[in-house]
């Protein structure tokens, strides 16, 4: 009881924190030998949201997610799960808590000696539920993940995507308050990844389940996360709603992780860019929200009636928000004309970057 009281008081002290926070991390630190896997991580996960944590391998993601269910212990800092501090709990106290937290894994971790339904029912067996109830719940969950006909099969006969569906069903068996996803789609092909992510999103919507996922793929964040935290060398370098981080990445690491899925200047054009002196100037124009939904380019043409070329780019929709990147080439070496174009675009809330000049435009 005392534990509970202190935890609540702690929550009230923290500005912006509410009882709605399923997870709250405060200044989490963990070292392995000479390297800091976690170097002061503070983070909250709100009820019902999907928070994505992205970083390169070795950034500390796995250590972080394992601190949330006590598989890993931080050296210092606090881990609150539904308001209760758990980082100093003993193994015996952690066991009932872990039943409130489902977890899915990159390599699925299904038991090869058990049938699909027995795998799904295992968390309930651990809870000591009667067999009839376990099997009924397993049947419900296999129906939810679309694998009812595989109930009596063994995991070896399943494809990767089916194995992860079983993993998800198993993680949901004990009706958890939080689902942890540890690179759940990293071992799957792109098509299967999409279907697994769609399933997770469905579960999030239908059951209101809070999901925290770690990944190294921006595509995963883009498809299902509401908020994203970028982690590098054990620190959170950037955090916010997915569309705004995509529209305006502030850190180098975020930009590099985004590189794979945001439009890039075609390589052969990038190779011909000169720092100065050319007949055309290539601009990168990033727009998001209203600026991306309005008739930006035609307005530009009306306001400054001189030719420009759209070289490359596109508009993506992230969380129903348009996020665009356009590569525009402005002919001529007239500096005041270029300045006028940039001023116009900036007035429309676009971010403009001069990438360089091209001598002989194609």
């Amino acid at each position, binding site marked *: 009881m005392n534990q509970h009281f202190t935890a609540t008081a702690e929550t009230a002290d923290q500005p912006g924190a509410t009882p709605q926070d399923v997870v709250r991390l405060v200044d989490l630190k963990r070292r392995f030998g000479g390297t800091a896997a976690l170097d002061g991580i503070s983070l909250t996960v709100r009820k019902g949201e999907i928070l994505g944590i992205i970083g390169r391998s070795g950034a500390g993601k796995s250590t972080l997610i394992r601190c949330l*269910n006590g*598989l890993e212990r931080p050296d210092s800092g606090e881990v609150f799960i539904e308001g209760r501090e758990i980082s100093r709990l003993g*193994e*015996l106290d*952690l*066991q*009932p*808590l*872990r*039943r409130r*937290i489902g*977890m899915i*894994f990159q*390599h699925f*971790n299904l*038991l*090869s*000696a*058990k049938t699909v339904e027995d795998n799904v029912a*295992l*968390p309930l*067996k*651990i*809870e000591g539920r009667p067999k009839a109830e376990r099997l009924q719940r397993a049947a419900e969950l296999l129906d939810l993940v679309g694998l009812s006909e595989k109930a009596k099969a*063994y*995991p*070896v*006969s399943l494809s990767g995507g089916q194995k992860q569906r079983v993993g998800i069903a*198993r993680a949901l068996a*004990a009706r958890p308050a939080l689902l*942890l996803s540890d690179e759940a789609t990293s071992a799957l092909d792109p098509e299967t990844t999409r279907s697994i992510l769609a399933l997770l999103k469905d579960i999030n919507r239908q059951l209101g389940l809070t999901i925290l996922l770690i990944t190294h793929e921006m595509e995963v964040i883009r498809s299902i996360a509401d908020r994203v935290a970028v982690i590098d060398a054990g620190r959170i370098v950037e955090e916010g709603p997915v569309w705004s981080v995509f529209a305006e990445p502030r850190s180098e690491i975020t930009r590099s992780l985004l590189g794979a899925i945001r439009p890039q200047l075609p390589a052969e054009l990038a190779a011909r860019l000169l720092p100065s002196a050319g007949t055309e100037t290539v601009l990168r124009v990033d727009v998001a929200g209203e600026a991306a939904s309005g008739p930006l380019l035609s307005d530009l043409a009306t306001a400054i009636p001189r030719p420009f070329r759209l070289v490359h780019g596109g508009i993506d929709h992230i969380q129903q928000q348009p996020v665009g990147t356009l590569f525009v080439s402005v002919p001529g070496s007239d500096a005041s004309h270029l300045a006028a174009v940039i001023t116009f675009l900036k007035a429309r809330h676009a971010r403009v970057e001069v990438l360089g000049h091209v001598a002989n435009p194609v």
Partner: protein
Amino acid sequence: MSPILFELLLRSIWETVLMTAASGLISLVFGLPLGLALIATERGGIAESPWVNRALGAVINGFRSVPFIILLVALIPVTRLIVGTSIGTWAAIVPLSIAATPYYARIAEVSLREVDRGLIEAARAMGGNRWTIIREVLVPEALPGIVAGFTVTLVTLIGASAMAGAIGAGGLGDLAIRYGYQRFETSVMIAVVIVLIILVCGIQWAGDRLVARLDRRG
């Protein structure tokens, strides 16, 4: 072969089967928990305890380094304490079991170590305790290896039981030495070898079939 020799052969088969089965069963009952203890107490195990691990390892290595024929004689006081006599088939079961238990513990340890650590982590993440991990993960996942290792142990025991004649335990090995070798009864020698081959092949075949049925790893 005379009817008397034939009867002797049948009795010897029974003695060998009895020695192998009894000491095999005992080595399974004690060796498997010992193998689990080795895995659980090792670094990163579910009940990490380096000192216990080292102590267990030392005792096991100690027993395994003594040649069986010496163990057979050295354990005579222990045998007398347990079965009341140091001579005969039952007396041989004590040193056979004591030799086979650490042997099987090591074989079980190897199979148990091959269980994917991710599975143990998954069971822990579900809120499972050590006992759950042993019962639901370690033993079922390692079962094919545990059974295959038991087959190997039984075959080794058949071989070791041949030496048990040194303390009057009888058995096929004893028969082959006393009649086949010392009394030049070649037919006895041939019969013993054929029976041993059939026994070993039978055990191996049954073990392999059981492993194939248990193995769901594809």
